């Protein structure tokens, strides 16, 4: 077990826990954006910064989601330094992100009243990496990844062409905190327009060795009201 002090109260946690996990465990609220319990910590959004007070020297800010609990550590989650840093980070994140419910709640929580920055290009993606990590770690597919660097950095499929590995599960859309994720645009997941020929092909696939004859195709056509000459 590791002993540490958070907000002047002594706590005991098992070894290997991060500061964020310890805070959550004892009901100390630390705001997060890029953290998800089902995913490996990423340390991307810097909203979870807390102040680490060393025995001597200046206090410093660490990202609590990736910083491990250390024996005898003294941590403050609500110090002036941490709160101001979070507010600035939140303001920067909001500069890009649209006003989605989640981001508005975050702004209120952090006390961001006005956003002084403006992104050259409006994009709601804050590059928290949740979608990319969820696709890799939860779905196990890795259809999307972060491409390019610096201000050109964005989430896309390899070579920015429709990914054949994407299974269209929508986990990326669901986990996106800013509502930025454009499903078909980013993954290349195509909404296949219905056509008689597509159904006929599908029919061959499902019918397998038992040929049900063209009546099935006709039925499907009638069902979907597809004109006879199509396909």
């Amino acid at each position, binding site marked *: 077990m590791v002993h540490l002090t958070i907000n002047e109260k002594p706590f005991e946690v098992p070894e290997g826990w991060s500061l964020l996990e310890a805070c959550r465990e004892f*009901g100390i609220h630390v705001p997060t954006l890029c953290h998800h319990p089902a995913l490996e910590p990423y340390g991307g959004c810097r909203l979870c910064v807390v102040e680490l007070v060393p025995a001597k020297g200046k206090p410093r800010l660490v990202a609590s989601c990736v910083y491990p609990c250390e024996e005898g550590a003294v941590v403050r989650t609500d110090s002036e330094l941490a709160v101001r840093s979070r507010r600035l980070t939140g303001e920067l994140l909001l500069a890009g992100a649209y006003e989605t419910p989640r981001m508005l709640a975050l702004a209120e929580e952090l006390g961001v009243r006005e956003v002084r920055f403006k992104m050259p290009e409006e994009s709601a993606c804050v590059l928290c990496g949740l979608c990319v990590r969820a696709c890799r770690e939860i779905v196990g*597919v890795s259809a999307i990844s972060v491409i390019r660097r610096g201000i050109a950095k964005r989430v896309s499929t390899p070579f920015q062409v429709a990914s054949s590995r994407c299974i269209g599960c929508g986990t990326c859309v669901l986990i996106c905190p800013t509502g930025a994720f454009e499903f078909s645009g980013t993954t290349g997941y195509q909404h*296949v327009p219905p056509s008689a020929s597509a159904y006929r092909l599908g029919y061959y696939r*499902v019918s*397998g060795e038992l040929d*049900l004859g063209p009546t099935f195709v006709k039925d499907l056509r009638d069902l979907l009201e597809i004109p006879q000459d199509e396909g």
Partner: protein
Amino acid sequence: MTLPTSIETHTSEPRSPRVGVFVCDCGKAIAGVVDAEALRREATRLPGVVYATREDYPCSKGGLARLQRAIAEHELDRVLIAGCAPRLVEKLFQATVQRADLDPSYVNVVNIREQVAMVHAEKPTAALQKAIGTVAMGVARLAASTAAPAQNGRVVRTALVIGSGLSGLTVALALAEGGIRVIVIERSDNLGGGVTDVQARTREQTAAKAQAALAHELIETLLNAHILEVSGHPGDYEVKIEHGDQVLSLACGAIIASNSAQPKGLDIARWFDRSRVRTQAEFEGELDHATEPGKNLGPKDIVMVFCAEGSQLERCSRVCCNLGIHQAIRAKELNPSANVTILFRELYVGGIGEAYEAELARSRKLGVTFFRYRQDLPPVIGDQTVDVLDPLTGEPLRLPFDRVVLTMPLVPQADSRALAMLLGLPQDEAGFLAEPRLRLRPGRYVDAGIYVLGSAQQPADSAEALFQAYLTSARAARFINQERITIETPVASIDPGLCTGCGNCAQVCPTLAIRLKKRDGVLSLSAVEVLRCLGCGNCVVVCPVKAIALPGWDDLETPAQISAALDTWGDGGPKVLALACEWSAYGAADMAGVQRIPYPANVRLIRMNCSARFDSYHILWAFLNGADGVLLGACPPGECHYGLGNLYARERIEKLRAELAAHGVNPCRLRLEFLTVDDGLKFARAAADFVTELEKEGAG
């Protein structure tokens, strides 16, 4: 005589399941709206629940540790987490209960965050009632469920390559170099297959590969061989091959279809003077003949028509421009005074390297004339002349000919339809084998054991064929080098005692996982190849005797959820049950929560694996037990993850609506909606619409 020991187990009373409920506060995201303590209290009263607790974050390290301890302390054998979207956290909890020696299928996550707290924040009482209903449904499902054992299968370290063209041989050699045994089957009597490339270099390359393949100790070649039957599953196929006059049975882990395409024959329905109108293949024979000493090429006015068949206008055959130019050069070389004219729609000089371009330049230098023709005005071949409009000048051209050479499109081999059926692959319009549409499948077989490449898929030039061959060999090697295939998601199983062998299930299976087998030599019996089964449940619905079980989505679990929902309904508004396909409507409902789009709280969601599993019996069960409306959510047509599940559902629902109307039940109480997974707004609107309509109709 000793009694079998198994009888004793029958006498012992089966222990009723002990369910533990973990209500997540999710900080304030859930507890801020739903009275979590009341929810926990209600949960303890549910049948089967022996333990119910609240957690701030059950998904945190501490929460997971306490979950694991609680399972041991309270001897829980089923765990319900009332928290957020199961898609995001289910795996996390499954891993945790597994550490507590519980089968992972005995943990159920129900969503009271996105589907309750986030959408019904304005109505805390209704939200609590919905949360209680949701938890009750989850508990009912757990109590009715039985674990599905994980399915394992071996992977045979052998690959079967169909066709010994350039791509087939390349794959075979690449895999053999990787230490994988390869069997190459070829329908003709020599290796090399139908290489359609004209470059001598490609032919030499293929011949060299054929030599290398013959010499390689890991490659076995079967000439004059045909596939008769494919059974088994990815990783362990059993293939019956007719080889000469014997039938061989081979086991292989992966099947690579690389059979060639062939030029189409001239359609007999179209009459031409066949002594003067030839196909490119026939003309090649003529050229070969002319090169014999003392024989010169007869025809003087040669007109070549590229893209001769209408069908080729839609799909480029990649190699025929090269072939045509090559033959034009040969004709010009044999008879320099011949007038060779090429009529083309588009010239595609494919292939990598400068050799093909150089041929084009050379043909021009030798005096071959090129004219473009318009797609809507193809050349007209008359008795003595070919008439065509030159789009550059707008002038009609009249070209006299002694020989018209038609470049025919490449079409699949005659037996590709049979091969497609054996492998369960779709064919495209021209009859080529299409690659399985991976994205339409659940992530299970991202690497299925069947690969299609080269001209089996579409006409390919040598460079394309080579690239594809190396890509395929890398993918196939990775697949074959797995030690075993494991499937943890539930699959269908058929009770042989109940099966009547009607064959309904085999007809609707999207993966050919169900085959009819002989029983007692007379009757037939359905058998599921478990590692091919995707678990869509289509077969369960069509089985007239209910002989098929699909753990997780069984005939016990869904009605149990329906009953539980209706028993805990509370009051207010019509009772609407929504059966939601987890790939579409369930995700859409989650999205409605993320986007905080409210919809009526009197809609309870039941998560289904696929719309194919929407069972008329379940819907009738809901109506019988007092539901006012049943809303069904499926993927839009063309997007079903299991092929055609949504269309089957649509057909069934239409029939059921007609039946309901015939029996005096208002059919508006049953509605099917097509939704995509990111369509939160559409789901919220559909739910609100449906509730309004039910209220208007006064259904009940």
